[in-house]
């Protein structure tokens, strides 16, 4: 049995997906399978057969940063960067489901992603700022 995480990093060479805890607690390995956020350290690779998988490499697919990534850059949402791919995917996932989240919704959506550096506040600010930019761009 292989973990999706290892197939992505070792066979596909997509090392943007990180391993933190290896036990589902930290969210560093988060990816989306058919649009659903999962922790790839807990997903057997066979459960992703024939599915579309989005890793952090696919978030800025055409070379342009996603607004969530821009907001992380500008608001200090990333420091060492280990949690960042998972945080960004969890935030992108939230904003697709709830384009106008409250701060409480942001906190709940990121509750499965641990960060040892930022103290979280700058991450929450980044996600709320990304949400504002998305709504502004739609006006």
């Amino acid at each position, binding site marked *: 049995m292989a973990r999706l995480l290892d197939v992505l990093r070792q066979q596909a060479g997509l090392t943007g997906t990180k391993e933190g805890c290896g036990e589902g607690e930290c969210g560093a390995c988060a990816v989306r399978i058919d649009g659903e*956020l999962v922790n790839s350290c807990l997903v*057997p690779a066979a459960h992703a057969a024939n599915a579309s998988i989005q890793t952090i490499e696919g978030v800025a697919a055409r070379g342009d940063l996603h607004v969530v990534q821009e907001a992380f850059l500008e608001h200090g949402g990333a420091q060492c960067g280990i949690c960042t791919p998972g945080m960004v995917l969890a935030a992108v996932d939230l904003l697709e489901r709830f384009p106008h989240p409250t701060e409480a919704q942001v906190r709940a959506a990121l509750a*499965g992603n641990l960060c040892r550096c930022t103290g979280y506040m700058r991450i929450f600010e980044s996600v709320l700022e990304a949400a504002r930019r998305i709504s502004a761009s739609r006006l």
Partner: protein
Amino acid sequence: MTPLDGFDLVTPTTLDEALALLASDPAARPLAGGTDVMVQLEAGQLPPRRYVSLWGLRELRGIVEAPDAVTLGALTTYTDIRRSDTIAREYPLLARAAEETGGVATQNRGTIGGNIANASPAADTPPALLVYDAAVELRSSAGTRRVAYAGFHSGYKQMDMQPGEIITRVHLPRRSGWRDYYRKVGPRRAQAISKVCVAGSIAMDGPAVRDVRIALGSVAPTVVRAAAAEGALRGKRIDGESIAAARRALVHEIAPIDDLRSTAEYRLRVAANRVEEFLRG
């Protein structure tokens, strides 16, 4: 070499095929969302064996309403539960349990069947299932049977399920006229394992208690119904006297332990306080 090398995973596409695979290898075990199994595998806690994936069996996923019961397929995820209006309206304790389980990623893969079969005394949906008088449908290549969820877990990690059998459905009888209460106590609001979990439901008949259900997690080798505390309340008014009687009964019927998450003393006191909070509404 990774800790998963000794494990083989087969991915049947129909329930019959899955049951035949389990029947042909008594050591084989089912795997649903993998949020418990994968953790235990990576920690090297499980013997090498074959796993039969249930994840692809769509027929086991989803929530169906009938006049007398609402039925959840065993593969129904926490996210599915959170998105169901029926569950939010009629079985709010289950909705709360789903909401307070793990984070989004865990909720997208963790299933109700896996939560029951993993048989942790700290699992968060079982107290709700006990309060709602749930029944569990089990199936093997030999046939189907249905058992009350109360009594399904008989001791620490012991349950009324044979090798080759899987949980296929969870039935919840329809209900109305109850006031529900749920409180999970952990070190953190999100993604924490319970120190104590209390689920309760009460129906009044005028000033007196017509019926009441109290179930607790993390206070005994299995999730438990507090039958003696319930008995101390039926037919009574809710007042200082009946609450004190329920608290006294409760401390005799639960047996919390000291472990890395909490102490027996803390659990006992918090369990009784939460039950009182439930009763005082």
